[in-house]
């Protein structure tokens, strides 16, 4: 006789989410998600704010990866206006976006380690994330919600001494992540806990619309940065990490390798960055028309559908958030698994409820 158990919203591991689990003994038969605890109506607010006022607001859709979200929105605005940012600004955007990605991946790694009881790893990741936050603070003036990327370019140039400090931190992190590898990914207990747990096949991952590192962990070779390049990504050299197994371990591993690739991208961008202006003037209104753009955020692909009506406010803004799409994968996998695996599967997807709810 199945019993319905509410996992969350007061569960220490759940975040702003309730999963209603139909449990028989220790086995979860069926899962129903209940989200919306942090719904702020961001899509409706967009219709009441000028397009420039909305830049800080969209960053609140995903605090842990704010520059990438701002970039997605700003690219939609620019595409609608037909404006292109200057070359130097493109590189600066890539630097901010990749630092933001590292910050997001380290946080995901910290949380996943916590579910397995690997508290050392949690503290290591959180500590090293602090170095990235300091770099971002130096570059943008804020630690988490940066509001650095704006229509037409970026708000300010590289500060004095940033390059030197960035190379110091990145060189350290480049060595340091191999400690993570030894500590976490080669750890027998962690492997037992995550390998073969929550296996998503390639076909299922595609049809469920799963995106980002979770999609690439299932063997799908797709990354917007390479396949639909934006900003300066087509001039930078990096690998798209693809793994085959599709289990929780692989999803964490893909994110781990992506940290190394992000470091590589930032180093190149800092070396190759051209001189020039960092911002161009943009028109005060959004022209009539519509546009759909996508960028690769830390959690996956962010799609922005923007309709302009010839005023300074968007007529309609749709945020197709990566965690919203990955939620379908999570619910699909939380069937016929032991209840103890639920937190592992949940954190392996790196779902942030702020961007599911918007």
């Amino acid at each position, binding site marked *: 006789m199945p019993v319905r158990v509410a996992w969350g919203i007061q569960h220490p591991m759940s975040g702003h989410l309730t999963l209603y689990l139909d449990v028989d003994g220790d086995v979860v038969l069926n899962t129903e998600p209940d989200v919306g605890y942090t719904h702020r109506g961001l899509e409706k607010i967009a219709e009441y704010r000028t397009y420039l006022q909305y830049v800080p607001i969209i960053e609140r859709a995903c605090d842990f990866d704010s520059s990438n979200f701002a970039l997605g929105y700003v690219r939609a605005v620019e595409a609608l206006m037909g404006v292109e940012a200057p070359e130097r600004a493109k590189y600066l955007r890539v630097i901010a976006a990749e630092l933001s990605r590292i910050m997001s991946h380290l946080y995901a790694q910290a949380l996943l380690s916590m579910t397995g009881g690997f508290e050392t790893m949690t503290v290591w990741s959180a500590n090293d994330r602090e170095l990235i936050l300091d770099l971002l603070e130096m570059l943008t003036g804020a630690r988490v919600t940066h509001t650095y990327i704006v229509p037409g370019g970026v708000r300010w140039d590289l500060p004095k001494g940033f390059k030197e400090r960035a190379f110091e931190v990145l060189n350290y992190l480049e060595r340091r992540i191999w400690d993570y590898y030894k500590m976490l990914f080669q750890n027998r207990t962690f492997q037992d806990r995550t390998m073969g747990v929550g296996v998503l096949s390639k076909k299922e991952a595609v*049809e469920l619309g799963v*995106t980002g590192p979770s999609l690439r962990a299932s063997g799908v070779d797709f990354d917007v940065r390479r396949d639909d390049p934006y900003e300066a990504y087509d001039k930078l050299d990096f690998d798209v990490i693809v793994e085959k197994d599709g289990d929780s371990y692989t999803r964490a591993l893909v994110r781990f390798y992506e940290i190394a690739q992000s470091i590589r991208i930032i180093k190149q961008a800092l070396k190759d960055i051209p001189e020039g202006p960092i911002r161009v003037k943009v028109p005060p209104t959004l022209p009539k028309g519509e546009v759909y753009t996508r960028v690769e955020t830390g959690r996956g692909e962010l799609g922005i559908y923007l309709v302009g009506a010839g005023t300074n406010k968007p007529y309609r803004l749709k945020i*197709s958030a990566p965690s919203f799409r990955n939620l*379908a994968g999570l619910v699909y996998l939380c069937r016929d698994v032991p209840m103890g695996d639920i937190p592992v599967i949940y954190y392996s997807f790196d779902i942030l409820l702020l961007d599911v709810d918007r």
Partner: protein
Amino acid sequence: MNVDKVVEEVKARLADVLLEAKVERKNYAHIKVKPEGLVRAAQLLKECGYSHPASVTGVDYPDRGEIEVIYHVESIEDKAIVALRTAVSRDNPSLPTLRDVWMGVHYHERETWEMLGVKFEGHPELKRFLLQEDWEEGVYPLRKEFKLKPES
């Protein structure tokens, strides 16, 4: 199949329900069909390799008396996007669900129903998702008649 071929294929096989099909920019096409041809169009797109659903958007146009629903679907092989769109009347908006074609649109459709009141016939779980449980019946926040109150 790349977007140029998809547009040709759609023009050849869906002529009776097709309203518009064109390639807007590189790797991005939009296809507009009548509501009754939506399922057929979706199946055709899936045959062409467009199996990765990205987003479902509803846009309210009160002056035209219509709600437009747009499915953005991606192809992994061709790195391309197709926007499949259709329009329904505002008074009694109803569309067949595409959940059986693309599993991933399940929650997207649920959200569109909740925010704009578009009823997806055949959807197994059409109930509140993001809004609170005591939200008033028949009030759809993303419709234009729903106004936000000024804060001051």
